[in-house]
């Protein structure tokens, strides 16, 4: 059977997922469960419980042989289903073969510098993505292939070898440096993430590190201090991302606080003082 990838959505032109103009492919499923997740419907695979069917105003959803069926033609993209879903999932998932994706890339190929896989957490579908990258490079050697990851799987592991080899650059999230804070905010330990930080830096495949800045909950200074020291000798960019509460689950919002622009500037200063040449606040 040919490999299939579970994709939540594709943005044909993205200017925030790596250098230049890129096609961004968002894969379904994540191994973290971040409180501030802006796309919580990408976290789990659909359990086919059928709860969202009732809420669909255009009858685009049906249960067939215990499986949810989504009719894209009928869908008006109101997102009611993903809001109803109690399992942080979405019924609107595409199952793509490599060829399906190559066809989509082909269409926009003259306009992009490359593709970026994101999520959810893309590395959970590493085999599929590694194969996709191999094919992309074979067909269009000029296109670059980037992976956006939360660092939750150990990329040093043998089973990610093919993915790492065929990825031009990674973009890694470091959501908190402190163990307890990281566990609290993401539900997972930070150790692997930090191991990945060193690993990707040392093999020169770290394009960018991103930290989402949440006031009060996280010791952001600590995070920025450490990360910037580690990446400063390389060309790696440090992206300091302001937490904004749109798209975030309602029941989580009360715990999360946006930083002021002043705070963000101070953090950027720290990164610069520690020798990071390329910083960006967004």
């Amino acid at each position: 059977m040919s490999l299939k990838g579970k994709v939540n959505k594709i943005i044909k032109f993205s200017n925030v997922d790596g250098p230049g103009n890129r096609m961004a492919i968002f894969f379904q499923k994540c191994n973290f469960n971040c409180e501030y997740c802006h796309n919580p419907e990408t976290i789990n695979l659909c359990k086919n419980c059928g709860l969202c069917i009732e809420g669909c105003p255009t009858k685009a959803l049906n249960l067939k042989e215990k499986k949810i069926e989504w009719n894209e033609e009928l869908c008006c993209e109101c997102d009611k289903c993903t809001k109803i879903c109690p399992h942080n999932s979405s019924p609107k998932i595409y199952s793509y073969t490599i060829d399906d994706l190559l066809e989509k890339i082909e269409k926009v190929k003259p306009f992009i510098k490359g593709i970026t896989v994101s999520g959810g957490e893309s590395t959970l579908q590493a085999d599929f993505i590694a194969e996709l990258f191999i094919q992309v490079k074979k067909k269009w050697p000029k296109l670059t292939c980037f992976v956006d990851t939360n660092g939750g799987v150990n990329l040093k592991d043998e089973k990610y070898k093919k993915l790492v080899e065929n990825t031009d650059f990674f973009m890694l999230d470091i959501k908190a440096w402190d163990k307890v804070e990281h566990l609290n905010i993401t539900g997972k330990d930070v150790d692997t993430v930090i191991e990945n930080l060193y690993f990707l830096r040392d093999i020169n495949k770290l394009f960018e590190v991103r930290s989402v800045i949440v006031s009060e909950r996280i010791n952001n200074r600590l995070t920025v201090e450490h990360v910037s020291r580690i990446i400063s000798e390389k060309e790696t960019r440090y992206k300091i991302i302001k937490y904004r509460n749109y798209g975030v689950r309602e029941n989580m919002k009360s715990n999360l606080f946006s930083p002021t622009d002043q705070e963000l500037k101070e953090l950027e200063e720290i990164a610069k003082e520690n020798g990071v040449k390329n910083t960006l606040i967004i």
Partner: protein
Amino acid sequence: MILETIKSQKITFEQKVVALARLAEGSIEVLNKSEALKKYIEDGIICDLFEGNAPYRPRYIVPDYDIFMEQGSKFLNIDKPTNIWEAVHGLLILYKHVPSITTMPVYLGNIDYLLEPFIKDEDEAYLAIKLFLKHIDSTITDSFCHANIGPKETKAGLLILKAMRELELPTPNLTIKYTEETTGRISVEAIKTALVTAKPSFANDKIFRDDFKGEYGIVSCYNGLKVGGGANTLVRVRLGALSKLAQSKEDFLIRVLPEVSKEMLDYIDERSRFIIEESGFYESSFLIKEGLLEKEKFTGLFGFVGLAECVNNLLGATEKKERFGYSDDANALALEIVSTMHKIIANHKTQYAGEFFENTHLLHSQVGIDTDRNESPGCRIPVGEEPEIFEHIMKSAPFHQYCPSGIGDIFVFDETYKSNPEAILDIIKGAFETNLRFFSLYSDTCDVVRVTGYLVKKSEIEKLDKGEQVLRDTTILGKGARDNAKALGRKLRSE
């Protein structure tokens, strides 16, 4: 009308002088017009864009400023410049003596190449360039005035872009000629500038250079013309209105379009004839005598607007998926219409178009005027119906080969692109790879915005909304285009 113009408090002194001259010109009839042409004009199908009844200068003049920089001007008593101050000073004087349909120059030259030899001390050069640009904006009070830079990166080019970003002025309009040898550095600087002040646009250098067998200038809105020449006249047809005279699309292609084209071409010839044979321009102008212009490098422009409305009309397309920009049938018909006009023009040999152009006029996708309703600019997909950007480019590109003297699309990008201007460069590269000829952009936060081809300041339109005087004619046109044609409602490109 004359007294009304004299007494008006809404227009400036200069605007009054121009308006009065137009009234004088309008009071005589010297051109031969056929009955059929008169009917088309009366019905608003053919129009000469207010060029007047007795043309006494070419519409667009594209002097060879290199010659001026080499020899100065005897007539103007200017010596060959030896430093940056003499260079900008000489050019500013010359600009005041370059006529056009607007009375002001529509082309200022490849100003980076003109100034580059004089850039010694960069601080001093920057000051000179800033004053130069400011001077142009305040004295050439019409943003149909266009400067070019590129394709090679120059110090002057980088300084010009920086100064424009700082000044945020609508005049002059600017285009960077882009080719593979244009560096990433100046391209990115150009995009950053465009995201602040809606210029420069990007011209596909390779295509223009092929079409014009060498040096060309981008003038007025986005018109490509031959350096050392220009265009005597621009007459246009409103295809949307014209399509209503056809029984079917076959009837349109076989009867209606050829008939109107014949009248158009005769009228272009007649206007050109008057300029060439009667007005005395080509005998008396010092620009000709000193070699900055050659009659043989002038042509005439056959313009059109409303391709989208024409096609949608002929097909009775109401649903989005049937319309121009979406349906393959609609686009194929549109292409057939444009290529038919192209063929008709190429087959029309006339002594009123220069030998350089093998005695033919050129096809021009016209951007429209402020009073146009229900006619989209040239071949553009109507504002409000724009497809996704790459579809938009792919659907537009096939038309660009037919319009050497100008065609282009405008894209509005949101602010996020300011932190990744390379993303826009990738889009432009892709667009040029698909043979798009001309690409304009601005960001939704710009005060200076591109209306159809020319630039205006939104803040100035607001003044006009309150009934105050404004310096530039084009602001008045911009207000009209906003009110009548949603010209400022373009789709915002984000992500």
